C-alpha cells in the first residue's frame, strides 16, 4: 500500500513540478543593483556632478589630486618616453583623451583630469584661460608643459581646412566655455602638426585616428591613410611611400614580429589576416603603453578605453587592409591584438624607429 501510494505521489509531484517549471516558469528576472557604491559616493559628495569638472569648485580638493606615487609613475613614464617628451612640447602628448569626458558612465567622469597625462589637463586649463574664465585656484597640477605649451601656441600650425577636427574639439570643451574655433585649434598642436603632412586626406584621417572615441594621435607617428588595397591608391595620391611592410596576423602572432623604419619615413603597412578567428590590429606608442600599464595598476580605471594611435577593432579572417603612417620621432611603436589573452599568446610586434633600431 505504501509503495503504491508512494508511486502515485511521485507521479503527482513530478507532474506538478514539471508543470510549474516548464509550462509556467517564473518570468525572467534581472534585478538592477539597488544602490551602488558610486551612488553612495555621490551622496557623500565625493564625486562631483557630471559636466564642468574643470570649473567645478568641488574638484579643487585633494580627492582628485594626482597621488604622489602616481606623479612619480608619470614622471617615469615621461622619462621612458625619452626625447619626444623632454624636448618637443610643440607636439603635446596625448590629446585625444578629451573625448573621454563625454563618456556616459559617471564613474569615469573624473578620469580625464586625474588620469594622467598632464598636458591634457593643462590644455583644458589653457582653454579656459583663453576663454577668459580661468581660475588659477582650480589648477589640478602645474607643469612645465603648460608654459612650454603657451610658448608654442603663439605659432600654431593652423590649417583652416580642418573643420572636422576642430568641431570635435570645440564640442568637447569649447561649448561650455565658448571657446573660439581658433583657440580650440591652438589646443591641438599635436594634431595640427601631425595632420599637416597630409592635408589632402585630413577628413578621412581625422576619423581614422579618432576612430574609437578616445582618438589619440600621439607624438611620433601619424596615420596618413587607411583602407583596402583598392581604395589605397586614391587615398595616397601625392604621398611618397618610402617603405612597404607586410604584416600577417595569425594564431598566435604577427609576422614579422619586429621591423625597423627610419625617422621621417612614410611607411605603408599591408596587414593581412592569415588566421582563423577574428583579431584586432592596434598600433600604440610607448606612452600609450605606459598609460595602459599605469591604468592596469589602478583598479578603478580598468574599465577605461585605452588609446591607440590606430585601432581596427575587428579584422576578420582573410581580410586585408592597408595603412599609411608617417614616422616623426624615433622610438618604439607596438602593434598588437588586444583581444583577451591574444597579446599574451604572442600577438604583438614592434616597429623600431630611428637611432634605437634593433
Amino acid at each position, binding site marked *: 500500500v505504501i509503495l503504491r*501510494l508512494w508511486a502515485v505521489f511521485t507521479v503527482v509531484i513530478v507532474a506538478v513540478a514539471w508543470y510549474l*517549471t516548464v509550462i509556467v516558469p*517564473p518570468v525572467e528576472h*534581472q534585478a538592477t*543593483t539597488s544602490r*551602488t557604491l558610486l551612488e553612495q559616493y555621490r551622496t557623500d559628495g565625493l564625486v562631483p556632478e557630471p559636466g564642468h569638472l574643470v570649473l567645478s569648485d568641488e574638484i579643487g580638493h585633494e580627492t582628485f589630486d594626482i597621488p604622489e606615487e602616481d606623479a612619480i609613475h608619470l614622471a617615469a613614464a615621461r622619462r621612458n618616453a625619452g626625447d619626444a617628451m623632454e624636448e618637443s612640447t610643440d607636439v603635446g602628448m596625448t590629446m585625444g583623451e578629451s573625448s573621454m569626458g563625454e563618456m556616459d558612465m559617471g564613474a569615469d567622469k573624473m578620469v580625464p583630469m586625474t588620469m594622467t597625462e598632464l598636458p591634457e589637463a593643462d590644455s583644458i586649463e589653457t582653454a579656459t584661460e583663453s576663454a577668459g574664465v580661468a581660475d588659477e585656484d582650480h589648477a589640478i597640477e602645474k607643469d612645465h608643459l603648460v608654459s612650454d605649451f603657451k610658448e608654442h601656441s603663439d605659432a600654431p600650425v593652423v590649417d583652416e581646412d580642418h573643420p572636422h577636427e576642430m568641431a570635435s574639439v570645440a564640442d568637447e570643451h569649447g561649448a561650455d566655455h565658448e571657446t573660439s574655433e581658433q583657440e580650440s585649434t591652438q589646443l591641438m598642436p599635436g594634431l595640427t602638426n601631425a595632420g599637416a603632412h597630409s592635408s589632402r586626406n585630413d577628413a578621412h584621417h581625422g576619423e581614422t585616428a579618432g576612430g574609437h572615441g578616445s582618438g589619440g594621435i600621439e607624438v611620433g607617428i601619424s596615420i596618413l591613410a587607411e583602407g583596402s588595397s583598392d581604395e589605397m591608391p586614391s587615398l595616397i595620391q601625392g604621398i611618397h611611400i618610402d617603405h612597404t611592410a607586410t604584416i600577417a596576423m595569425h594564431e598566435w602572432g604577427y609576422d614579422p614580429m619586429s621591423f625597423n623604419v627610419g625617422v621621417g619615413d612614410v611607411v605603408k603597412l599591408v596587414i593581412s589576416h592569415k588566421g582563423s578567428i577574428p583579431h584586432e590590429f592596434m598600433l600604440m606608442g610607448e606612452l600609450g603603453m605606459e598609460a595602459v600599464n599605469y591604468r592596469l595598476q589602478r583598479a578603478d580605471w580598468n574599465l577605461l578605453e585605452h588609446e591607440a594611435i590606430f585601432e581596427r577593432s575587428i579584422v576578420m579572417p582573410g581580410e586585408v587592409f592597408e595603412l599609411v603612417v608617417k614616422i616623426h620621432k624615433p622610438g618604439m611603436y607596438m602593434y598588437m591584438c588586444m583581444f583577451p589573452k591574444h597579446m599574451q599568446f604572442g600577438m604583438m610586434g614592434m616597429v623600431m624607429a630611428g637611432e634605437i633600431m634593433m
Partner: protein
Amino acid sequence: VEDRTATTEKVHAAMWQPTNLLGQLTVKEFLFSNDYRVISVKGILASLLILALGGIFALTFRTELAYPDIQFFGARTYMGLMTLHGMFMVFGFVIPIVLSVCYYLMPKVLKTDGLLWAGWLQASFWTLIAAVALLIIGRPDFTWTFYAPMSLRVGGNLVWCGYVAIVLVAVSEFLAGAALLRNVFAWQDSWKSLPLLGWAMLTEGGLLILSTPALALVGALLLTDWLQLTAIFDTARGGSTTTFLWMFWFYGHPAVYLPLVPAIGILYTLLPRFLGRPMWSRQSGIIAFVLLFVLSFVVFHHHFQPNVTRHGWVQRFFQIMTLLIFIPSTLHVFNWIASLWQGPIPISARKGIPFKFLIGAIAMVIVGGVTGYLNAQISVDSDFIHNTYWVPAHFHAMFLGFCAQVAIAGIYFLYPYFTGRMYHSGLAEAHFWMWQLGIFSKVMLMYALGMANFPRWVVDYLPLPEWVTAQFWLTIAGYLIGLGFALFVLNVVSSASRGRPVGASDPWPIMETPLPDVPAPTPVWKETTK
C-alpha cells in the same frame, strides 16, 4: 585481519530477518516513526522521488539540447530546470539516499539494532522535504552553486525560497551528521574493531558537521544581502564575491565527498557480504578514510581555480593537495579490486543484481577518478577543462556512476528486508544493463564534448559536427538511464506484492556452485507468481 562485517549476518542472524516491513506499516507510522528501518526506507523512497524529479528535469532539458537551436523553451526555463536538477540530485537525492541506506545498515553492522538520536534524523528528513518543497515553489534559476552576486540578481520575487532552502539543506545535513557521530561514538568495543562502515560514518559525520555551517551561513547571508540588510556578497554595495567562493566551496568540496564516503562504506559492507570473505585490508580502508577526511577540507580552491587567481603558492598548495586525494581514493579502489582478486567470486554473487551494480560502480569510479587527474592540474583546468562539459562528465561519473549505483545496489540488497519478497530479476537485469550502457556512454560523451570545449550551462549551441552528434547521443543515453529507472520503480512497486517471498531464510545465501536441489538465488518471476 579479521573483518567483522563479513560475519555480521551470521552473528546477528536475528537482526537480518527479512520482513514485510512496508506491508505492516500504517501511513502514520511510515511518516513519523522513529524506528531506524522506517527512517531508512522513508529516506530511500523520498530520495527516489527526488531522483524522479531531477531525472525528469534532466530529460526535459536533454530533449531541448538534442539538437542545436531552440526547440521547446528558452534560457529561463532551461536555467530553472538545470538549477533544480543540480540541487535535487546533489542535496535531495545522492546524499540522502546513501545516508538512508546507511541508516539501515549501520545499526546492524554496529550491532546496536537501533539508532540513537533518531528524532534528529526524523527532523533532518522533514527539513530536507521542506527545502525541496521551497525549491519547487521558488523555481530559482541561479544554478546549484548560486554564485553571488548573480544569485542576488536573478530568480525574481520568490528567490528567497531558494536561499531558505539552502539553509534548510544545511540544517538537515548537520542534524544527520550529528546523529551519525553520536551513533559511532556509542561503539563500545575497541576502535580497532570498528567495522569499516563505522569508519565511513565517522568520516561522514565529521564532514557534515564541520562543513555545513558554512553552507547555512552562505544561505543566510544571501537572504540578508537580498533583503539589503547586509552587503557581504553584493559587489555593487561593497561586498565580495571572493568571500562567497571561499565560504561556499569550504562546504562545497567536503560536500562532494558527502555521498562518496557513505557509498564507500556501503561497498565495504556489501562486498564481503557477497564474496563471503573479509576485505583484503581493513587497515588501508581506515587510513584512506582518515586521509580523505583531512584532505577534503584543503582542496576546495580547485573548484574556482581559473576564476580567481591567487598567489602562486596558494594555487600550488591546492593543486598538490588535490593530487594527494589520489592516495586515499586509490587505497579504497585497490582494496576492492584486491578483495575481488584474492579468491573465486561465488556464483551467487555473480548472479546477484546488487553485486553487479557494485562492480559497475567500481568501474565508473575508476573512469571518473582517472580522468579526474586532468581536472586537478591547474594548467589543464584553466586552459581546457574549466566550465566545459568535462566537469559535469567527471562528477556524473562519480555521483551517478559510483554513488548512485552503490545506493541502487544497497536498495536491491535491502529489498527483501523491506518487503519480505525478492525483486523481479529480469526487470532488475534490464535496469542494470540500461544503466551501465546509459551511464557509460553519457559520461564518455560528456568527456568528448568537454574535450571539444562544449561550455556548461548553455541552452543553445552552434551546429558544429563534433557537438551535434555527441549531444544527440547524449540525449539518447539520458533516455536510456531514465527508462532503466522507470523499470526499477516498476520493479520496486510490483514486486512488493508479486515477488517471490523469501520467508525467514537468508535471502542472500553464498553459493559457490549452483546446485540442482537448491533454488536459484534469483528465480524467474513467472515461476513465482503462479
